[in-house]
């Protein structure tokens, strides 16, 4: 190790590793270069510690504002013990089925998204359901964006969020994924998706009398 002192306490960032990427395997003939910096094993160790994981999140029936908190945690690397606001250890999150999100209460009708074109009279107010009809990824994207502190890092962090309206995720992105985030709340089954047999066999506390007419 060249200067071991500086690696005290916090592992050096990925940037450091990348700068020294001219590793032993790319410089087979240049041994001296290697001796002055760090061994290939140490370098690999850092590569592992700062590896970017790709997480998959299914937004079906999930509250986008609650989900945003979990997504932000993963995007910013807040779920890692090595977290530091300046060491760029955030992961990627792929969100699927964003079309099937569930807003709480009256939110579809009451939530308003404001936009201004900066021209006089350029203000517009879009209801959540309208926005969702126009672009089914925007509600969750905005929830994540607004859930983060407004700083210079925010837009870069957003680059690591990939939202898809349905479960058709491009193959090259799907291959990157190595972890799944669990649902935040159970997904209910729609009544019309339950088969008649199941309904028939479900235990009943009382049976309606034969002559009882269901309206």
């Amino acid at each position, binding site marked *: *190790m060249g200067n*071991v*002192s500086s*690696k*005290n*306490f916090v*592992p050096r960032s990925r940037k450091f590793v990348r700068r020294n990427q001219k590793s032993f395997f790319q410089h087979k003939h240049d041994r001296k270069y290697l001796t002055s910096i760090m061994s290939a094993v140490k370098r690999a*160790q850092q590569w*592992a*510690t700062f*590896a970017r*994981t790709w997480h*998959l999140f*299914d937004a079906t029936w999930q509250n986008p504002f609650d989900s945003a908190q979990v997504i932000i945690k993963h995007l910013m690397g807040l779920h*890692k*013990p*090595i977290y530091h606001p300046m060491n760029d250890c955030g992961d990627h999150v792929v969100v*699927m089925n964003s079309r099937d999100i569930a807003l709480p209460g009256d939110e579809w009708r009451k939530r308003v998204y404001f936009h201004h074109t900066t021209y006089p009279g350029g203000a517009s107010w879009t209801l959540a359901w309208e926005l969702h009809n126009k672009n089914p990824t925007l509600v969750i994207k905005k929830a994540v964006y607004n859930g983060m502190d407004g700083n210079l890092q925010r837009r870069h962090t957003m680059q690591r969020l990939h939202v898809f309206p349905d*479960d058709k*995720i491009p193959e090259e992105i*799907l291959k990157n*994924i*190595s*972890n*799944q985030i*669990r*649902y*935040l*709340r*159970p997904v209910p089954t729609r009544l019309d998706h339950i088969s008649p047999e199941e309904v028939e066999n479900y*235990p009943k506390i009382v049976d309606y009398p034969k002559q009882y007419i269901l309206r």
Partner: protein
Amino acid sequence: MSNSHLFMKTGFPRAALNNGIGRYVCQLQRVTIKFCKNNGSSRGVRDFLEHDLVNFAKENPGIVVYVKPRRHRTPALSAEYLNGEKQLLFCRNYTREEVNKWLGLLRSQVRDTSAIRLRKMWHTDNPSIQGPWTPWTFRDPAQNLVEFPDPKLFKMETEQQTATEKLLEIFKAQQEAERKRANETG
């Protein structure tokens, strides 16, 4: 202060040449005691020279001590360390005890420690025995076989039974018992 350290060298507490792993070597190689023979500000230094210098030299044979009288100037200790650094310590109006103590400091330190800002109060060459944390340290190896997306891995992990599940269980147990009874009687 906000920036007194701006033009200071920075570093970590390190022993020169792994001092102490092999054997201890005093890092102060020579010291020049400069003083005036007449001036009052050199009085403590003169006392020191009179009473303690011989003892000091005897106790520290590895340090070369020079004494340099000069007229009408502030007394000073000029220390030279093995790493080539020099430190000049003015001891105007110091008492004999103070000179003794400052000389003791010069003798025991590796270098001019007031000239570096310590980034950390400690240093280690092997920060980790078990290997630093990685995202995979506690990962379930079963995940290697998963084809993403896997519906099972989305499910919430609830250990507690829900009320519905409990009811269903009771119902099934009832049915089972009834069936048994029917079999026994029939």
